[in-house]
């Protein structure tokens, strides 16, 4: 008898054991983000009830704003899980919207989106290879890449936005819908599902966590840690560029600054969602709920009538507070 949980005598016993395991291994951490989401929702529903927070239109708006954050957050979860960080995602996202605009104009809407994501993955590959082979922390490499990519994006169309004229592109990657379900929501679910399955059901996902938790141990077991770190950074850049495609689809333009300022929001969403900022633990579902939390906060602050400058201040403070709380919870376990 090596495992007392092998043959639970009843469903109740199994459930108790499951709960037990969750509690002892991870504390309440996995649930904090869901609780926070509910609390913030309830809070805004009460204080902003006369400002239209609960209207269908506003809730849809929150969903639309959460989409690019969520898509980037799923990618970032893998970078953080591998104990890397990708600071270039905001500029990659913006650059990608321009690449998509150019691609759609020249090669059609599917090819345009594919090209944008492949180019994004290429930037991630560059990030990863430099970080791993030249042994520069990904923090610095991607910080440099942030500057390079945003500069290139600014040169690309001389600071002008590039309009996209392709109804198929809008239908699939923008304001379209499948029946009553908006396509942005569908993409969020698809990206989240893929991310979750990759993290939990594929060897690569487990290896990403292993490398992030203890790189030398992973290496001692023969895992190619270089390859894992590079591909994790590719995942975050590819996700960021897909977020750029979705922003381009929603706004019908490519522009050098679309999503550029989402970096901090994304990091906050991922960390609030239970992913460890220093590797070894990740939650894709948490990252998505964290993104919804961040989108609700954005929306609520606007509805409260705060000036843009005050929104910035409030958002920055909230992010620090939220991350501090979730990291304290993580340290306790």
């Amino acid at each position, binding site marked *: 008898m090596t495992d007392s949980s092998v043959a639970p005598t009843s469903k109740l016993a199994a459930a108790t*054991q499951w709960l037990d395991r969750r509690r002892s291994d991870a504390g309440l951490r996995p649930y904090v983000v869901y609780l926070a989401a509910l609390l913030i929702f309830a809070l805004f529903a009460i204080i902003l009830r006369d400002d239209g927070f609960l209207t269908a239109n506003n809730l849809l708006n929150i969903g639309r704003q959460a989409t690019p954050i969520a898509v980037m957050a799923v990618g970032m979860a893998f970078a953080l899980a591998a104990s890397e960080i990708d600071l270039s995602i905001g500029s990659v996202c913006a650059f990608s919207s321009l690449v998509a605009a150019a691609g759609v104009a020249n090669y059609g809407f599917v090819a345009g989106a594919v090209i944008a994501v492949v180019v994004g993955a290429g930037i991630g590959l560059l990030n990863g290879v430099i970080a791993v082979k030249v042994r520069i922390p990904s923090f610095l490499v991607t910080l440099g890449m942030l500057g390079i990519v945003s500069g290139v994006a600014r040169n690309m169309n001389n600071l002008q936005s590039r309009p996209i004229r392709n109804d198929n592109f809008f239908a699939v990657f923008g304001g379209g819908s499948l029946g009553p379900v908006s396509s942005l929501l569908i993409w969020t679910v698809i990206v989240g599902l893929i991310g979750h399955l990759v993290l939990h059901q594929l060897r690569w996902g487990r290896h990403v966590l292993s490398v992030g938790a203890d790189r*030398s141990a992973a290496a001692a077991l023969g895992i190619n840690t270089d390859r894992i770190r590079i591909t994790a950074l590719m995942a975050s850049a590819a996700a960021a560029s897909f977020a750029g495609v979705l922003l381009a689809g929603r706004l019908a333009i490519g522009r050098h600054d679309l999503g550029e300022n989402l970096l901090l929001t994304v990091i906050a969403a991922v960390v609030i969602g239970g992913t460890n900022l220093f590797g070894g633990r990740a939650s894709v579902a948490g990252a998505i709920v964290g993104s919804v939390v961040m989108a609700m906060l954005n929306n609520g602050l606007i509805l409260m009538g705060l000036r843009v400058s005050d929104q910035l201040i409030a958002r920055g403070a909230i992010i620090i507070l939220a991350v501090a709380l979730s990291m304290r919870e993580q340290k306790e376990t």
Partner: protein
Amino acid sequence: MTSVASTVALEVEGLCKSFKAVRALDQVALRLEYGRVTALLGDNGAGKSTLVKCISGVYTPDSGVIKVDGAAQTIASPEAARSLGIETVHQTLAVIDPLDVVENLFLNRELTRGGRLGTWLGVLDKKRMRTESKEILGRLEIRIPSLRRSMSALSGGQRQAVAIGRAAAWGQQIVLLDEPAAALGVEQAARVLDLIRNLRDAGVAVLLITHNMERVTDVCDRAVVLHQGRKAAEVDVSEVTKDDLVAYITGARTGNNDP
């Protein structure tokens, strides 16, 4: 284990490894045989861990030959060592805390399902890995309360047992153990020694690094002593006393280098 004629599992000859000006290993020779436990002894800094890391592919030796089953091998990486049937339990254990017991046992040896596409994608066959984990741990009489527990929830002894279980499960031929019972309680240390005996009885060639003379006389057949990067002695444990071994370790005496 594979052939009766050759019982030599691993042979190391003239192994040298330097770190900048420091000669960590100088012309070291070592031989491991199937079904026998060899102790690797020496003071701190004698080169024991360096030798183990050269054999397990963590370090590349500067010169020298490593033969596995009589064939000279270049062990360029830990993966190369593992694919030659050499498993190592490092001092640090190399267990991954956030993963569970099953995932640790099968790390980088995962079973996949879903045919060729599944293999290419690396779709984990969790059910089969779980069943086989139970089988592996049962065979080695390792008791872990729950296979779904993450490693960080286990005690020091349990973590060690999982690390040794992993080495035993995959090291069909050669298992290297770097201080596997350090920092363990008396009872847990005894369990580790039982595990080592099980491995030996299964025909595995075991190398055991330890500072504990009791363990040497308990489970080891032969002992190789390193002193300042060189082989100071190689002896049959039954033919020497603990005091002799200590004398070799401290360098007070040098023994027969060519038994």
